[in-house]
């Protein structure tokens, strides 16, 4: 596959650069050939599970919360619509790092309960993501032609049925590329949770970098970790798009054989 080749090319060029100027690069620190290198690699990779875990939780929660939020607007009620606008604007204005810090350090004081870094990070990033997801849904519904609403109305479908069977299936399909984009952003934003101590990949890299004094190699490894994760996620999103036929107006998809 194309992205595998890309990955290989990037990896190889970095290694070649390492060989070419061995006075600057010290790959021994994560060399699979030595025991120490293997232990270090294992340590760095132990963060991947947390990164994937928090991303999955945030993606699921933001998809659901975003829809709940959007349904305020969908209700057609002027006041709920106003409330929707307010919530979206507030959630979007807070930098995700700030909201992570606020939820982790601030919320316990207010609510009297302690959340671990995973829960705090998930809550903060899910709320942030939900605002963007809600706007993605709104854009999708707005892109549906007026005739579809009118046809559903003329058939005496109730408002709920009109949305459920006619409008939303089409709107969600159109929203998929934008949603995929958002998911990739959320995967990368999970790195922010390292500041409150979740042992995901960035935290692990930081910890190793200060004990081994080899930031160049360790952060290069971190770059590669994200590259693999993001490319895998992108491939997954595109696979879902194809499954749901959301790419039917994509000129590149039309050229693909066997469709």
């Amino acid at each position, binding site marked *: 596959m194309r992205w595998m080749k890309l990955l290989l090319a990037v990896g190889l060029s970095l290694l070649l650069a390492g060989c070419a100027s061995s006075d600057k690069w010290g790959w021994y620190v994560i060399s699979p050939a030595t025991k120490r290198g293997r232990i270090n690699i294992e340590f760095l990779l132990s963060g991947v599970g947390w990164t994937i875990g928090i991303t999955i939780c945030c993606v699921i929660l933001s998809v659901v919360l975003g829809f709940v939020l959007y349904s305020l607007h969908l209700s057609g009620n002027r006041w709920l619509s106003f409330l929707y606008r307010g919530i979206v604007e507030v959630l979007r204005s807070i930098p995700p790092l700030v909201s992570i810090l606020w939820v982790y350090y601030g919320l316990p004081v207010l609510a009297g309960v302690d959340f671990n870094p995973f829960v705090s990070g998930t809550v903060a990033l899910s709320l942030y993501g939900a605002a963007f997801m809600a706007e993605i849904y709104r854009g999708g519904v707005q892109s549906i*032609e007026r*005739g*579809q609403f*009118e*046809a559903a*109305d*003329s*058939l*005496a*479908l*109730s408002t709920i*049925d009109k949305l459920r*069977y*006619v409008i939303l*299936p*089409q709107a969600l*399909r159109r929203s998929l590329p934008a949603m995929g984009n958002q998911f990739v952003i959320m995967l990368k934003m999970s790195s922010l949770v390292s500041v409150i101590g979740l042992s995901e990949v960035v935290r692990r890299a930081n910890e190793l970098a200060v004990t081994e004094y080899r930031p160049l190699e360790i952060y290069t490894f971190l770059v590669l970790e994200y590259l693999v994760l993001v490319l895998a996620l992108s491939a997954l999103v595109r696979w879902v798009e194809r499954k749901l036929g959301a790419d039917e107006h994509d000129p590149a998809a039309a050229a693909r054989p066997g469709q």
Partner: protein
Amino acid sequence: MVEERSGNAAICLEAVNKWFGDLHVLRDVSLSVQSGERVVVCGPSGSGKSTMIRCINRLERHDSGRVAVNGVDLDESTRNIQTVRRGVGMVFQQFNLFPHLSVLRNLTLAPMRTLKLSKAAAEERAMAYLERVRIPEQAHKFPRQLSGGQQQRVAIARSLCMEPSIMLFDEPTSALDPEMISEVLDTMIELAENGMTMVCVTHEMGFARRVADQVVFMDEGSIVESAPPGEFFSTPRSERTRTFLSQILAH
């Protein structure tokens, strides 16, 4: 002949006015359609003819006057609106089929959800109407796989599946290639001959001559003239009607 029976008319419009912002699109429009009657509405573009028939099933809200369908007044009541819509089918210029659903599902959706028909009953009914518009073999295709004429016939069948007592047609052949117009008109003629109450906005004057009981000419938001087709085409009363007819019948 029309006015005195308006109390039990299928469709009754009384002094209906509508504005789009500052634009006065319907001016004191009054129209009465009896059950089983076929009315063709024509007029230049922007004359308000589409807006008028869209007021009949509340796709447009009228600003003043009265619209009653089968004795039910169209007002702010959602229940009244749904009651009227259940009895009124509509066919659009752009077909407006649901592109993500198969032809069969397009036809069964509203009967199942709104009329609470079982899947089997809805499918049986859908197939019966697809037979009637002569495309039962397309049931499992998606709308985009059909020609324009076939899509419009599916749209007609979809409306008929709700078994409405009135059918509204909003320029049903205007978006079609010339060779597909007649297959749609044939379907409409067949409906008319079976006694369906119909209001058609169309420029197909041959169709008007053949099936209409009443031809209504609109211009600048008003009904200028209304007459049986024979009279309408041979001895139009107003100058504007004569000009319009000479323009569309010139070729």
